[in-house]
């Protein structure tokens, strides 16, 4: 439902464009002021004091109230003598809607300037990583930060991001945590060796059967981690559960093999693709963060290996672990639920067990299947751990702050100056260094060592507004209309990497070279080629397509089990990102987003999309079936382009059912670039009824019989209906479900408000390709918004038009668009 709400922020202007002139004042005077004037104020409503055009929040609220009452047909009341014609009402609604939209825009205007922009959560994390040389993949100093505020799904808009006392307190805590982490080991920690064989206790549910059948000889992993019961998805060494003694790189060796990939049971019991070899992953865990055989808040996949059938073999992985973390082993392409599988096998294959051996119940089911059956799993026989391994000492994180020399008290000011210059992304002022030195003085006076006092001053720098804000002097202050060298370098770096400038870019800012167009151009391409530009791809898609919300409305586990067993959620996001990377790297036209005869996917997605002829391609090398690759969609015209992607189709549904309204609004917003006006208050909601023959189409058609509703829904519903053959997780369907049975057949034909009809996805995509220019404009505006950290306003229209025109002349390439955005005057202005 998110799009419906967000559109409230930017009302459409296009509504008013076709409307004949109507004077709201005359209308109100004629039909409303009899009761709602200053004297009577019937229903506490005084419209006499309303002046036009609408301006300011109180007037907006009043005007919205009038719109709502007219839409509902509640006002004027039946008994009133003077009744407006239907046309008068429609025109007034359109006129007021337009005025309200403009009033809201001007209320939110920042004068086409970026407002003092706070680092958002991901920018903060990335910046800390680069600034301090820390590995924060599985150590999150921002875990208690409040969620960043977004505007139009963008998480980096200056005037939207709020700083609160709570957040500042979290900055203090985070600064303390990360600085102490940098200096956690001043001496090189000793490298140690651990070896574990046997005595592999398993999580509580499995303990009984594993003790009885194996006497804890093996560590077994059965299921994917995204499973409701979580009984056999994490293998960990119970004797090593307090974790490693120090931060560092650890070598993990496992003697392991795949058991029973070839089994005598019905594959449906597992939901696993047994054509693929078993994949073993490593995630970190902490004994003090919850049960080790259940999910924990921080558990990124650190590494993975493929485990072969046959005799157990040694597998080696090297992973970074933080003090107190213990490695946990996962079965990436394991079964859906070990509990269900144990139970199903024990009961359905009773003739496999010795007569009278199975007593029934889940506890004995596990025992009997492990003892006499062929349960597929990953089996680990032995675990060796070595570390922490340091190839150089002192480590980079010390050098990055202290330089090549060790700490000495008389170096304090020099160290702080060096650090603040980097942290503030510009040379720090003398006053700023004095402020830090004050912290040193106070902490010394409180009895702390010179080293501790220096560390505490570093923490202060990380809480300074000079660090947490991208503070660009405004236009009044800076002489010209252009950003200074350091601000421009930061803008480029946060745009493409979501982090601070690297040394090369910083040097160009220090020398002022970055202000030269040729240098900016060259740096933009360098940053884009760097792997760190993945931050741009993910961050921008999260904002433009709202992919950040993927998973906010988790699909139902019962109805969409594959979504979890095949890790479709992350695969969906990766498809859209990989597709975008392909556009960027090959400078492909941006219109590939509208339709393409290719996409980038892995085998799970190919199965989900039912691209049967492509499966052979993946089976040629089963060990790489989970790798993403570009595939031809020549035989599958229903896929291709954004609207064929599971990411988009899932994020526009609620995980249970689809709504043409939600998807229609999404298309108007993100493809057509013409967001509809928000729905009026008090519209009768759609109450889904899946018992009988009423389909969503019947219900919406009834809604559209009301003229005032039809005004917007004739634009919204048709593109939504076009996608009805895609279910809530983007799989193809021909019928609606009715409970567990098949419901009515789906009709995905309709006509756009322009009158162009379509009856299939390919025909609909044809129509999308007729609207290239609005799409190019929309994408340009979105990119500019993301790049500058502010909303595009009417004042910016000329600049946007210029980019769109040049883009067309250059062939509409995605890389060209990024280049045009970066070199535009909008990007280089405060």
């Amino acid at each position: 439902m998110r799009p419906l709400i967000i559109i409230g922020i930017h009302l459409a202007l296009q509504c008013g464009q076709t409307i004949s002139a109507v004077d709201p004042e005359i209308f109100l005077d004629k039909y409303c002021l009899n009761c709602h004037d200053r004297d009577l104020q019937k229903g506490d409503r005084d419209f006499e004091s309303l002046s036009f055009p609408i301006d300011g929040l109180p007037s907006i609220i009043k005007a919205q109230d009038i719109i709502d009452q007219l839409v509902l047909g509640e006002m004027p009341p039946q008994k009133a003598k003077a009744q407006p014609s239907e046309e008068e009402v429609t025109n007034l609604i359109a006129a007021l809607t337009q005025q309200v939209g403009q009033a809201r825009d001007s209320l939110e205007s920042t004068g086409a300037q970026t407002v003092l922009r706070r680092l958002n959560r991901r920018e903060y994390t990335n910046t800390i990583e680069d600034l301090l040389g820390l590995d924060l993949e599985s150590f999150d100093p921002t875990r208690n930060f409040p969620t960043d505020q977004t505007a139009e799904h963008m998480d980096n808009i200056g005037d939207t991001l709020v700083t609160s006392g709570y957040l500042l307190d979290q900055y203090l805590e985070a600064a303390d945590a990360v600085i102490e982490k940098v200096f956690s080991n001043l001496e090189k920690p000793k490298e140690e060796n651990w070896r574990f064989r046997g005595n592999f206790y398993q999580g509580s549910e499995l303990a009984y059967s594993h003790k009885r059948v194996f006497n804890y000889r093996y560590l077994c992993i059965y299921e994917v981690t995204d499973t409701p019961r979580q009984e056999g998805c994490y293998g960990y060494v119970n004797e090593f559960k307090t974790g490693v003694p120090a931060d560092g790189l650890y070598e993990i060796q496992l003697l392991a093999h795949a058991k029973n990939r070839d089994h005598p049971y019905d594959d449906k019991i597992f939901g696993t693709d047994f054509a693929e070899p078993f994949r073993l992953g490593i995630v970190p865990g902490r004994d003090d963060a919850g049960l080790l055989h259940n999910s924990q808040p921080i558990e990124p996949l650190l590494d993975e290996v493929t485990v072969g059938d046959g005799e157990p073999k040694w597998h080696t992985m090297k992973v970074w672990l933080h003090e107190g973390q213990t490695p946990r082993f996962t079965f990436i392409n394991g079964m859906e639920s070990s509990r269900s599988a144990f139970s199903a096998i024990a009961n359905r294959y009773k003739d496999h067990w010795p007569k009278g051996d199975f007593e029934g119940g889940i506890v004995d089911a596990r025992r009997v299947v492990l003892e006499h059956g062929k349960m597929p799993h990953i089996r680990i026989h032995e675990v060796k751990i070595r570390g922490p391994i340091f190839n150089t000492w002192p480590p980079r994180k010390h050098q990055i702050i202290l330089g090549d020399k060790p700490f000495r008290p008389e170096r304090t000011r020099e160290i702080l100056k060096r650090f603040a210059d980097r942290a503030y992304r510009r040379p720090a002022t003398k006053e700023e260094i004095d402020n830090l030195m004050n912290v040193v003085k106070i902490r010394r006076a409180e009895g702390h060592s010179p080293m501790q006092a220096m560390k505490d001053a570093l923490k202060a720098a990380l809480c300074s507004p000079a660090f947490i804000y991208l503070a660009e002097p405004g236009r009044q202050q800076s002489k010209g209309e252009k950003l200074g060298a350091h601000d421009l370098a930061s803008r480029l770096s946060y745009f493409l990497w979501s982090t601070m400038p690297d040394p090369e870019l910083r040097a160009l800012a220090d020398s002022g070279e970055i202000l030269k167009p040729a240098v900016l151009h060259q740096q933009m391409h360098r940053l884009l080629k760097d792997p760190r530009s993945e931050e741009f791809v993910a961050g921008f898609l999260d904002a433009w397509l709202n992919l950040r919300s993927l998973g906010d409305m988790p699909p139902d586990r019962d109805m969409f089990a594959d979504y979890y067993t095949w890790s479709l959620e992350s695969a969906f996001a990766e498809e859209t990102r990989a597709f975008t990377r392909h556009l960027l790297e090959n400078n492909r036209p941006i219109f590939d987003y509208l339709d393409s005869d290719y996409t980038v996917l892995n085998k799970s997605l190919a199965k989900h999309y039912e691209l049967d002829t492509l499966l052979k391609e993946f089976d040629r090398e089963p060990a790489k079936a989970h790798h993403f690759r570009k595939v031809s969609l020549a035989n599958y015209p229903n896929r291709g382009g954004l609207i064929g992607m599971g990411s988009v189709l899932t994020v526009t549904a609620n995980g249970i059912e689809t709504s043409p309204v939600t998807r229609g609004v999404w298309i108007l917003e993100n493809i057509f670039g013409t967001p509809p006006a928000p729905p009026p208050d008090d519209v009768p909601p759609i109450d889904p009824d899946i018992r009988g023959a009423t389909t969503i189409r019947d219900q919406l058609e009834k809604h559209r019989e009301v003229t005032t509703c039809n005004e917007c829904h004739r634009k919204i519903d048709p593109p939504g209906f076009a996608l009805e053959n895609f279910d809530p997780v983007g799989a193809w369907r021909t019928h609606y479900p009715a409970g567990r049975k098949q419901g009515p057949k789906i009709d995905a034909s309709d006509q756009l408000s322009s009158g162009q009809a379509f009856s299939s996805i390919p025909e609909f995509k044809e129509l999308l390709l007729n609207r290239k220019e609005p799409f190019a404009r929309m994408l340009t505006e979105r990119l500019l918004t993301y790049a500058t950290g502010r909303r595009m306003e009417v004042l910016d229209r000329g600049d946007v038009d210029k980019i769109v025109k040049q883009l067309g002349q250059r062939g509409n390439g995605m890389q060209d668009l990024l280049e045009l955005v970066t070199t535009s005057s909008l990007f280089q202005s405060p």
Partner: protein
Amino acid sequence: MTLKSPSSHRRFFLKTTGVSLALPVLHSLSTKLLGAGTSLQATETKKSASPTRMVAIGNLLGFYQPSFFPTAPGPNYEMPRLLKPLAPHRKDFTLFSGLDHDHKGGHFAVHSFLSGVLLMDAKGRPDGNISMDQLAAESVGSLTRFPSLTIGSESGIHGGCKMCWTRSGTRVPPIPGPKQLFNKLFVDESTDNLAKSYDKFHLKGSILDAVLGDAKSLQRRIDREDREKLDEYFTSVRDVEKRLELSRHWADVPKPKPPITAPKNTNMVDDLPLLYDLIVLALQTDSTRIATLEIGGDFEARYFDIKKGYHALSHHGKLQENIDHLLVLEEYQMQQFSRFLERLKSVKEGDGTLLDHSMVLFGSGMANANSHTNKNLPVILAGGGFKHGEYKAIRRDESHHTPLSNLYVSMLQKFGMEVDQFGTSTGTLL
């Protein structure tokens, strides 16, 4: 299919391990407080033997309306299935229909249950989208160890219930389970940790001084729009300074002795009675006067051995099978709420019971989950010294709307605050 009766379920073992202690802590705490720093003296006069408390409980998906709202209003209304568990407390609560915040937005509007204001509308309002509990907490200040306790979870649709908001538009991070709540209430810091805490207060103080200097010099270099933004930073610094002062004070006061052993977190379904018990203890020991509880995304159907998800069931599509399952989940919530009222009643305090001094709001920001509407919300108000015993059906149609915030204004007034407006209120109720 047969449904497992919840009453036979193991989660009811807690019935016997509950608490019914009369703790003399209130008195000793106030003595200690009186002797504490001068900055708190001024507010001391407001302290009485039986302070007024406020509790708000909300769930994510509402209640199946045909089984929740009686057919006819008045004092002699007949209780439908979901109200039946509350029968013993009939005289101690008022049931409302027809109240809401006039929002739409389905799950998003659930977040406005206690604020009356959607996050997107918060900007430009003097109090933003501050929720009722947080506004009340501001008035309690440092009088109790915790100005308020927010219990809930981050999981669930769009981040769960998200009921509690500060005036700057940030969600108050919830305490996730009984284990963490117990530690917060009863576990004292070790001497070593205490020394560390004091040092941390000092460190934070000196950092704030330094960054304040930086902010002032930044202020001179930027534009008007930017300066308004930087004001947030200055306000934040002052806010953290106040928090530090509060923490310093309470660090000196020992926590009350725990009357139960430390609990473990199991799951939201089994933990629910335990959380209610701990809230009773928190109020009883005057550790806080304001508590909120979110029954959110981690309250899952599988703990009732129901295969379909709670969210999916709430989209029941009017299928009877789905509705039957849904009612099992909702009935359990009503039973636990009833048990909570029972506990509050069992604690004698002053001239009455703890319930007499605690106003308890129970409901949801979701009205009809099947159609995602937020109009005509389920709302129950119990205790707090209000006159109860009735089902008040308030007229609700296109032309008549009584804001739920009106009820909140009445509650805030009862709490002792001089307010005549909250959220989108137009008056008072009760």
